[in-house]
């Protein structure tokens, strides 16, 4: 009998602090732990007692990479309590802001953090020596995503122009038109990127996931839709708590999310793409088909190419919105608070981000709950590692390569560990 352990003390190229431990006995995996030891940050507790108007700005601080997602999910939740619908150009501007976040987040993860795994480099800096054009393309793409955020929301990290009901100030038509030339460059760059990403060497690893994503009647989802899955889930976001549960595991400061009826599930680009391919514009579908990326894409390593397609979609969507943009008469819809509970669920770059708030008559937060995408993917990541290591052992994969590919497999999910550490009650169990 032999025992072996794959241990990665500190995961590189993910946001936040986490580690990995895989225990094996003979040729079987006996335990996998994705350990998230980033300390919890108690946002849900200190939102209590704050005004509903402060929540988008406070929750934006949860993440430097996906602050827009936090602002959007919280705004939608507050508006649902007040019975307010934000539509027309204000709604379009929200989608535009999300385009900026997807472009910058996907460009960073895809090329700077994940591509080195596929091309055999320890990091993007070493990769840049041999592939300078690819890295320059990625940095410029990321910048143009950031530019959208700066133009629309004041700054690229922790934007300051979003408010419940809309924006504090809306841009002039000219301000947005000034982004068009760079976005046209970005459209060509994203097409080139998809070609490069689709041609990467992918480990063989097809999986049968339950994908969960928003689905909207007409659009590839950012802000709105029903929550659906490929295994029968089709619910209003207000029913989230009836179908999902968060579970504490002793080795992680992030809660694990599960579907009550089944178990783990998969959120993020692969889920969105497989469930909403028909909502992509024909130009993006055509490129997907040309690179043999039609859904279902069930190999998580191929998510890097799907991120490339989503980047292309976000650039095209941004151009579409800007070209038809006329400033709305008012930058926001007045939102008068009232007592109640509301829900918001939007598509962060790494998957659905669910918020639930209860307010009193004066709009003071009585209760808050935030479920970020990384905590929803944790169990799925562990399952992937379990199966991948067993597959690696069966095919006599060399130990170091196996350990490295496990890290690569975690990065398939672009985990944002800082976001995921949010739980309130520390309840460690001695085993």
């Amino acid at each position, binding site marked *: 009998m032999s025992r072996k352990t794959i241990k990665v003390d500190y995961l590189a190229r993910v946001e936040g602090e986490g580690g990995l431990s895989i225990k094996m006995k003979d040729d079987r995996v006996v335990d996998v732990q994705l350990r998230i030891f980033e300390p919890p940050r108690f946002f849900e507790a200190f939102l209590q007692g704050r005004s509903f108007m402060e929540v988008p700005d406070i929750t934006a601080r949860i993440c*430097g990479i996906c602050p827009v997602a936090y602002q959007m999910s919280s705004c939608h939740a507050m508006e649902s309590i007040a019975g307010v619908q934000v539509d027309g150009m204000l709604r379009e501007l929200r989608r535009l802001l999300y385009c900026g976040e997807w472009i910058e987040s996907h460009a960073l993860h895809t090329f700077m953090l994940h591509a080195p795994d596929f091309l055999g480099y320890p990091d993007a800096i070493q990769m840049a020596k041999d592939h300078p054009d690819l890295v320059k393309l990625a940095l410029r793409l990321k910048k143009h995503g950031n530019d959208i955020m700066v133009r629309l929301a004041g700054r690229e990290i922790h934007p300051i122009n979003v408010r419940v009901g809309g924006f504090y100030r809306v841009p002039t038509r000219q301000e947005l038109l000034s982004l068009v030339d760079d976005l046209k460059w970005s459209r060509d760059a994203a097409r080139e990127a998809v070609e490069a990403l689709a041609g990467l060497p992918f480990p063989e690893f097809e999986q049968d996931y339950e994908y969960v994503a928003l689905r909207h009647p007409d659009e590839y989802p950012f802000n709105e839709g029903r929550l659906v899955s490929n295994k029968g889930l089709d619910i209003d976001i207000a029913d989230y708590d009836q179908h999902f549960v968060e579970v504490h595991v002793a080795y992680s400061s992030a809660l694990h999310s599960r579907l009550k009826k089944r178990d783990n599930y998969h959120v993020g680009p692969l889920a969105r793409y497989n469930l909403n391919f028909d909502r992509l514009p024909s130009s993006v579908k055509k490129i997907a088909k040309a690179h043999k990326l039609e859904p279902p894409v069930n190999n998580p390593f191929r998510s890097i190419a799907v991120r490339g397609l989503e980047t292309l979609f976000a650039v095209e969507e941004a151009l579409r919105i800007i070209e038809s943009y006329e400033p709305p008469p008012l930058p926001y819809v007045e939102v008068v608070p009232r007592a109640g509970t509301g829900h918001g669920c939007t598509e962060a770059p790494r998957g659905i981000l669910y918020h639930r708030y209860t307010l009193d008559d004066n709009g003071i937060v009585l209760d808050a709950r935030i479920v970020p995408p990384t905590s929803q993917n944790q169990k799925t990541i562990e399952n992937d590692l379990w199966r991948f290591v067993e597959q690696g052992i069966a095919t006599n994969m060399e130990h170091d390569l196996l350990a490295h590919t496990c890290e690569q497999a975690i990065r398939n999910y672009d985990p944002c560990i800082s976001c995921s550490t949010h739980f309130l009650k520390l309840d460690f169990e001695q085993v």
Partner: protein
Amino acid sequence: MLCIGVGNAYRRDDAAGLEVAALLQGTHLTVRQLSGEGAQLMLAWRDAPHVIIIDAVSSSGVPGTIYRLDAAVDPLPAYFFRCSSHAFGVAEAVEMGRALDELPAELIIYGIEGADFREGVGLSPPVAAAVAEVAVRIQRL
């Protein structure tokens, strides 16, 4: 000369670079304060031939120690500076700039060894002294 102070104002000594930049405001130097996100840094120093970056350092040295690195000569150890989001910070930006042949002709980095990187504001005394010293040194250049 472009001086870029880098850091997080709410992580005590991590604000050292920002504080140096604050002291240099109003002098003959062009001054910027940035978070230290790598891609942003690379954009900030584009087209600037002479650049100084000031950042807090966490390398188990004596708090308040001042380090001076010449990027043209010294590769930067990645563990040296406080890490930033998604692990693409000052050291990575410098090394990426080097790999892409996009470094300024002259790039000097001042590091100030910090003692306390917990949440909160205010520098610890040896770091505050080092901040004043670095600001004086840069103005003399």
